[in-house]
Every structure is written in structure tokens, then in C-alpha cells.
């Protein structure tokens, strides 16, 4: 059974179709990269997987471990093991990082029928995961993403992912706005979490990220559907030739 199976997905926002028959299959232990030009629907796909109700699903299905994801609320999807690393992490003044993470972990545990995590175990885990992404420990005492630099916000996303240990992580342009060092640290965190039981869907514009997070499969998304699938070499080819090449090939 596939971990994620998207079939003929059609979605629109304010009546405007964005996804027009997207198909995608992701198995345990795999890393898939989705590349594509601006406006092709990459972030829409990420949002829909996470459960953003701003988008209307007009046709198709998304199954996660054999169950329909579309029937679940966003927090239920998170408890099932789906994680979205935001392209633009939201600043939430007044909600401290620690309170946020503790609430998140304990609510997920409650949905899974588990007891809340012991404070000492929670703190230990926070320290471990902060070290993994080299996140300044002081940031844990600040409000969620408030006053964080662009790089800190992205590292914070990977820190949260490390804390929650999802089965499927969708990284929505996590490389955007990162310098080389930050990119390396973020990728290092992702690679450390990668194992045979989870899967990653990495959305990016650039091949650069894929030098650090090596994908098993690369898809090109354009005009609301996957138009080409290949290996890591496809990303290199796109980098060299641009998207026009593939769009013209598709047209022909």
C-alpha cells in the first residue's frame, strides 16, 4: 500500500481551477521532489494535503495509508502523520514556542490515545531537536516565529517537524530565502529525519536544494498536473534548459 496516493485531483479557489487532474503516488522511505514554474499549483497541492479549506476540491481523491485524507480536519491529518513546512511561516504574537509545541505534541498524543508527555522528556526532546537544526535555544522562549529571521523561520519549521516526527512531510519551498549555510543546516535536519518508515514531498523551484536532499523521484508540475516524472537528472536538465523546454516538449 502506498503512503500517499493522489488520483485525478481537481481543485479551485474562488471558482478558478488550479489543479486539473493531478496524479501522484508516494511510498514509504521515498523522497519526491516537485518542481515547476510559478503559478503551476505547487503550493496549492501542499495546502490541500494539509487541509486548507480555502481550496475547493471539485474532483479526485487523496489517500493516506489507505484512508481518505479529504475527510479529515487539518489537526486530524497532523495526528495521522502529515506535516506541512510552510513557505511563509505565520507569526503568532503572544503564543510562546514552548507552549505551542507542548500543546501540539500533547494534542496529537491525545488523538492517538496516549498520555501527555512528561515535562522532563519534553524538554529533553526540545534540546535534542534544537541541536539538530542549530536553532538558538533562546528562540524557544519567544512567540511563534515573531521576530525570527527568514532563515530562523525555516529552521523552526524543520525543528517542529523533528519534534512531531511525521510519517509524511511536505516541504513547501523551504529553500526560499535561505543562504547557503542555512540551506545546508535545514537539509541536514531533513536528512537526519529521513528513514525507511517516512516519506518527503519536497517542493522547490531550484535544483540547488536537491544537491543536499537527494530525491528518489522528480516531478514537473505545470498547468495543474504532473507533466513529467524522472530521476534526479531531470532536475539537472531543468536547471540547464529551463521550464520552457519541457512545456514545449509537452505541447508537441
Amino acid at each position, binding site marked *: 500500500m502506498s503512503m500517499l496516493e493522489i488520483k485525478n485531483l481537481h481543485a479551485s479557489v474562488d471558482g478558478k481551477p488550479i489543479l486539473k487532474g493531478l496524479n501522484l503516488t508516494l511510498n514509504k522511505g521515498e523522497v519526491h521532489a516537485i518542481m515547476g514554474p510559478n503559478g503551476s499549483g505547487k503550493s496549492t497541492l501542499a495546502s490541500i494535503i494539509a*487541509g486548507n479549506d480555502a481550496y475547493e476540491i471539485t474532483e479526485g481523491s487523496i489517500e493516506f495509508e489507505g484512508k481518505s485524507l479529504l475527510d479529515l*480536519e487539518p*489537526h486530524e491529518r*497532523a495526528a495521522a502523520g502529515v*506535516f506541512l513546512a510552510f513557505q511563509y511561516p505565520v507569526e*503568532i*504574537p503572544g503564543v510562546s514556542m514552548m507552549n505551542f509545541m507542548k500543546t*501540539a505534541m500533547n*494534542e496529537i498524543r491525545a488523538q492517538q490515545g496516549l498520555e501527555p508527555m512528561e515535562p522532563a522528556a519534553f524538554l529533553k526532546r526540545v534540546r535534542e531537536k534544537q541541536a539538530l537544526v542549530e536553532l538558538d535555544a533562546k528562540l524557544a522562549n519567544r512567540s511563534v516565529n515573531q521576530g525570527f529571521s527568514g532563515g530562523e523561520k525555516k529552521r523552526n519549521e524543520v525543528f517542529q517537524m523533528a519534534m512531531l516526527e511525521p510519517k509524511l512531510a511536505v516541504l513547501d519551498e523551504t529553500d526560499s530565502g535561505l543562504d547557503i549555510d542555512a540551506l545546508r543546516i535545514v537539509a541536514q535536519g531533513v536528512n537526519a529525519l529521513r528513514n525507511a518508515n517516512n516519506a518527503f514531498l519536497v517542493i522547490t523551484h531550484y535544483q540547488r536544494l536537491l544537491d543536499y536532499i537527494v530525491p528518489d523521484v522528480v516531478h514537473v508540475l505545470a498547468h495543474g498536473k504532473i507533466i513529467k516524472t524522472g530521476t534526479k537528472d531531470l532536475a539537472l536538465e531543468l536547471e540547464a534548459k529551463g521550464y520552457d523546454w519541457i512545456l514545449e516538449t509537452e505541447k508537441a
Partner: protein
Amino acid sequence: MELDRSTLDFKGPADRTRHWTGLNKGRPSSKQEEWKYVPVDVLMDALYPTDSPSSDSFEPRPEPLNVQTGIQFLSLEQALEAEIPGIQNAKESIQNAALDGLAQAYRPVNQSGIRVLYVPSNLHCIDPITAMPAVAQSTSKAEALLVLLGENAHLTLFLPHEAQSNRFSFLYVGLDKGAKLELNRDLAAAPGTLFMSHIQGSVAESAELKLVQWMQGGQAQRHSVQVSLNGQQAIARISSLQVAEPQNQLHSWVNMIHASPEAESHQNIRQLSKKEGISSFTGKIHVALDAQKTQAYQHSAAMVLEEGGRTYHRPVLEIYADDVKCSHGATTGSLDEQALFYLQCRGISKASAKRLLIEAFIEGCIQDFYPALQSHFRTAISKSIQQL
């Protein structure tokens, strides 16, 4: 040249200043700035019925709890006899303009209902004391509590659950040089209750008044505060947290008068309104001509939690001095949908996410309360937003 404001003859548009300065003694009207959003007729008819006979059966406030040695709790007569410092000013304040534009004819303060709480000079009260509300009140008389602190006296005062029935209460605060008063008010009114109050404050040199109030419940509440900073380095801090339940109206009015140079004031207001709940804040900063180096700040933020809820802010800055730092800010919004989605994506249910965001919104105000009271108000807000 010093202006005697009481002799000024206001004409034309400036005539509205009469209302701010308390020169107008008529029945309040929604056309007046300080009563703009208030259901004046509902409040006035209930609180000041013209056909109600005046009653002499008036029960004043009982003895406060936890009164320490040295603190005096007196009737007005006793306080006058003892020549408590500042008592004459306090008495005149009640008799004259103090009732925030209310006509004395509508609501005379019952002389026998006045109680005086006096903290002598240099007495530092470490433990907070609780001033219990009057047990019962006739519908035609107001009660009054006069809190007077001598030089360098310190006091923390709780005023819990003021309204279990319709009422008007008056509080005078007089702080002598270097005195510090922290006043925590729990203005939680019983359902259907109409509740109004007025605080008149006078803060001397280097003295500090901190007023924190929680407003919730009742049919309608309207609370006004007028503080005059009368000496250099005088400080006033006002925090108000207003939680308008469905069909509930909460209105607060503040007039911060900087009468002396180098004084400082802060107003920090948070408003929440649920379905059909209305909340308003009208706050004025008045800086007199010679009040140079004034620092005055006002911030009001509102969150409309459900459709049909309404909030209003009305900041007014009237500045005559030219070397001052004054600012005001007002924001109104609803729960941030993006923040809600972000929290949900981390496994937090929508209800918990809303609770987190609302608690974060009001936390800046909650932290102004005396530490021992903070958990009480956090619990109250959690209970209030449970059904959202």
C-alpha cells in the same frame, strides 16, 4: 498666565469640551462624546428612575478584608473630624464635577454611604486588602469609597464582584507624594444587571496609580475613569480587559489629564466581543499648556470573535504643550485564519487553536493584574470562550 478653566465660556464647536471637563451637569446623552456608544436611556431609566422614592435604608460598604494595623476605615464624618489629609478635596470631588457629567439631581451620593479608606504616610501594606462591595443599595442613591494614601504609602486593593444588582458606584483615589496604589477591579456583573461606576483620581508628585480592571457580563456596564496627574514624575497606568458576551454591552471611558510636567501615563485596553456583544473604549489624553516632557501612551486592541459582535475605539488627544511624547493606537480584527490553520497543521484542534490565540491576545492585559488574581481571570476567559 494660569487659566481658570471653570470661568471659560465655551461657544460653538468648542462647547463640547463642556462634556469632557464635567461642566455639563445635565442628563447624559448619546450625542456627547463620552456617552457616544452607550445605551444611555436604558442605563439612566433603570439606574435613576424618576418615579422612585428616595430611600434612606442604605447599607454602606462593610469593613474591608485583611485590613492591617494602621489602615483606617471611616465614615465621612469621622474622616472629616480626624482631618485626614486630602479629605476635603475628596469630598468636593464627589459634590462637584466628579460624576462624569452625571447630574447630581439624578444620582446624589448618599452621605451616609460614603466610606473612607486611609493609609497613613510611609505605611507600606505588603498584603493586598479587599474592599467588599456594598451589600444592598437603594435605587436612588449612590455609594462612594474614598481611598486616600499619605506620603510614600503603598497599598494593593482588590475590588471584587461589584455588581450583583443594578448599581452605581463612585470611587475617589487621592495619592499624596510618592504614594503607590495598585487597584484591581473585578467588574463581573450578574446576568441582566446594569452597572455604572466612576473613578476620580488625583496623583501627586512621584506617586503612582495602577488600575487594572476586568469587565464581563451584565446587560450593560459603563465605567469611567478620570485621573489628574498633578505633580512631576506622577505615573498612571490603566489596563482594561473587556469581554462582551452575547447581548452584553461594555463601555469604558478614560480621561487622562496631564496637569504637571514630566508625568507619565499608559492606557492598555483589550476588548473581545462575542455574538451581538458590544464593547467600546473612549480614551482621552489631555496635556495642559505647561505639562512639558509629558509621556502619554494609549493602546487599544479589539477582537471580534463572532459575527454580529461590535467594538469601538475613540482615541482623543488634546495637547497644548509642545515638548511631549504622546501616542495612541487602535486595532480591530477577528481571529487570524492563517494563524488558526498554522496551529491546526501542528495537530492542534480548531477550538484549542482559537483558545491559544485569544489567550495570547489578552495576555498583555492579564499580566497587569496582581499575580494571585491572574489565574482567576485566565480561567474566566477559558470558560467564556469554551463554546466558540
